[in-house]
């Protein structure tokens, strides 16, 4: 069956995908002369999209880490992960609302509010993710893999509906005129507000006269994401628990024989993944300035694609994939059409699965010598 797929199906699917890209390409804005023309006309815009792509990619990378870590350790695609991130956005927004940071102009109050929102969102998402594992995945660990996968999809629906109910609570989520939980809610641009209240321009490149925008938002997202990624890498590579996580991912039975408490290690993996999703939630809220109960779906697909692109289970790969997907999305938004961005992301996913299922980085060393 596998060799049949290799020999016949793979080229056929590949041709089909390439055909679809060229057929749908012009509709989806993939018109090379126009794109090249626009790049020549304004090279500056290319740099601008690069900045936007890096910042969005940093957020995607942080979410992708949660997918890839969980897959690495229990070989499950945690479909609820994107929705955990969505809960992170709402937790951050509600924390800012409850602490009064949304209505103040005092920069100290704003900064403290944002720090509080980061901490609360990370704690809430970490606990939620651990809870999901306990409730829906742990007892299915030795069941056929499809059972856990369906359970994950179910958890995704449940968390989305929690988000829908949450979004309708006007004492937690300021409505700014929108009604009901289904509407997109505004997440105020507090970072620019801080800068303005200090009589500074939110665009850090304003005084250079380059005509480029590198705002305080870009800076915060890139710096915070880098800190989280470096911290995570250090944790995985050097700490006792991080090594136990890697050992468990590589051979669960052998890890048990070393005296590693597998249940605890898996819980901690979900804890870290959830915490990262919470931080991504705050960053995305501050950066993109919206909160929506269904936003976890798109973010989840982008992050999942990023994880697969880098090589699912590979932490460095997820970071790399996140940035690449962020750049792709920014270029598609800028040069093609934002409505088609998901198509390009999906096309990357399909092409990767066909031509390089192990991803860009894949596994570095085989199981057997």
């Amino acid at each position: 069956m596998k060799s049949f797929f290799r020999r016949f199906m793979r080229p056929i699917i590949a041709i089909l995908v390439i055909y679809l890209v060229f057929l749908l390409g012009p509709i989806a804005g993939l018109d090379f002369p126009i794109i090249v023309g626009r790049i020549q006309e304004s090279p500056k815009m290319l740099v601008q999209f690069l900045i936007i792509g890096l910042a969005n990619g940093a957020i995607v990378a942080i979410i992708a880490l949660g997918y890839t870590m969980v897959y690495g350790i229990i070989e499950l695609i945690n479909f609820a992960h994107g929705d955990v991130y969505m809960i992170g956005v709402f937790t951050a927004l509600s924390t800012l609302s409850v602490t009064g940071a949304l209505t103040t102009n005092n920069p100290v109050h704003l900064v403290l509010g944002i720090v509080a929102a980061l901490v609360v969102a990370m704690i809430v998402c970490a606990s939620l993710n651990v809870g999901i594992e306990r409730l829906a995945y742990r007892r299915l660990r030795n069941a056929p893999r499809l059972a856990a996968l369906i359970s994950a999809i179910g958890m995704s629906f449940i968390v989305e509906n929690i988000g829908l109910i949450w979004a309708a609570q006007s004492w937690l989520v300021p409505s700014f005129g929108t009604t009901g939980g289904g509407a997109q809610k505004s997440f105020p641009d507090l970072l620019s507000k801080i800068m303005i209240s200090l009589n500074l321009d939110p665009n850090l490149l304003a005084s250079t006269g380059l005509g480029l925008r590198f705002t305080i938002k870009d800076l915060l997202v890139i710096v915070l994401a880098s800190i989280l990624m470096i911290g995570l890498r250090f944790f995985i590579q050097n700490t006792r628990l991080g090594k136990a996580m890697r050992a468990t991912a590589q051979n669960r039975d052998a890890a048990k024989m070393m005296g590693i408490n597998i249940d605890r290690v898996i819980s901690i993996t979900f804890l870290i993944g959830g915490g990262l999703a919470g931080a991504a939630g705050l960053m995305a809220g501050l950066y993109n300035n919206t909160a929506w109960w269904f936003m976890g779906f798109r973010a989840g697909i982008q992050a999942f694609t990023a994880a697969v692109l880098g090589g699912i289970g590979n932490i460095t790969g997820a970071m790399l994939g996140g940035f690449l997907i962020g750049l792709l999305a920014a270029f598609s938004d800028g040069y093609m059409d934002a409505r088609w961005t998901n198509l390009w992301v999906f096309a990357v996913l399909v092409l990767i699965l066909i031509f390089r299922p192990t991803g860009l980085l894949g596994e570095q060393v085989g199981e057997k010598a």
Partner: protein
Amino acid sequence: MLELIEVHTYYGNIHALKGVSMTVAEGEIVTVIGSNGAGKSTMLRTIHGILRPKKGTILLEGEALEKLPSHKIVERGISQSPEGRMIFPRMTVQENLEMGAYTRKDKAGIAQDFEWVFKLFPRLKERINQKGGTLSGGEQQMLAIGRAMMAHPRIMLLDEPSMGLSPILVGQIFETIVELNKQGTTILLVEQNARMALSIAHRGYVLQTGEIILHDTSAKLKEDPMVQKSYLGAN
């Protein structure tokens, strides 16, 4: 020291251990010989808590193990070099050995045991920063045994240490096992290579389709006509 009393283990619907009883005394090398599928690895995995017995008791110095999770069993002083070596392929030799000492907190003791392993297996020291998956089969076996040593166990379970190795390497590994035992580690050795196993063990058990059919000193087992015929390849 270690005692199994009427242990029954199932693999799904397969009755893999049908009431196995055996003992290992302090300071001994005890071997369990048997052909493929006799239940040897199942027995070690049951002792280690990876599999759960349906019936029966496993005692370590009188304390029941069969209800404990495997990490508690490791803490009680049992470590294992498993079948197929099961080293961590994408971790370095150093990290693999550190994992062996996972349950320990005594830094000085761990450092001493690193020296102990490197003295017995100088090859591992040469390859300390290499990924486990890039080692040769013999080196991986050394790593698996070294990793089990790092727990500084009271009793070490060795599952088919000769598997896939050249006769010279098998000889070296078995010399190391004797050396380990002389230094005070009790050893339960499971082997298909009955000749080698009986040459170093004090006592032996013969396991056949989940049941112990014979039990004696190694010297007597070697003389036993049934053992000679089935396991030592005599005519």
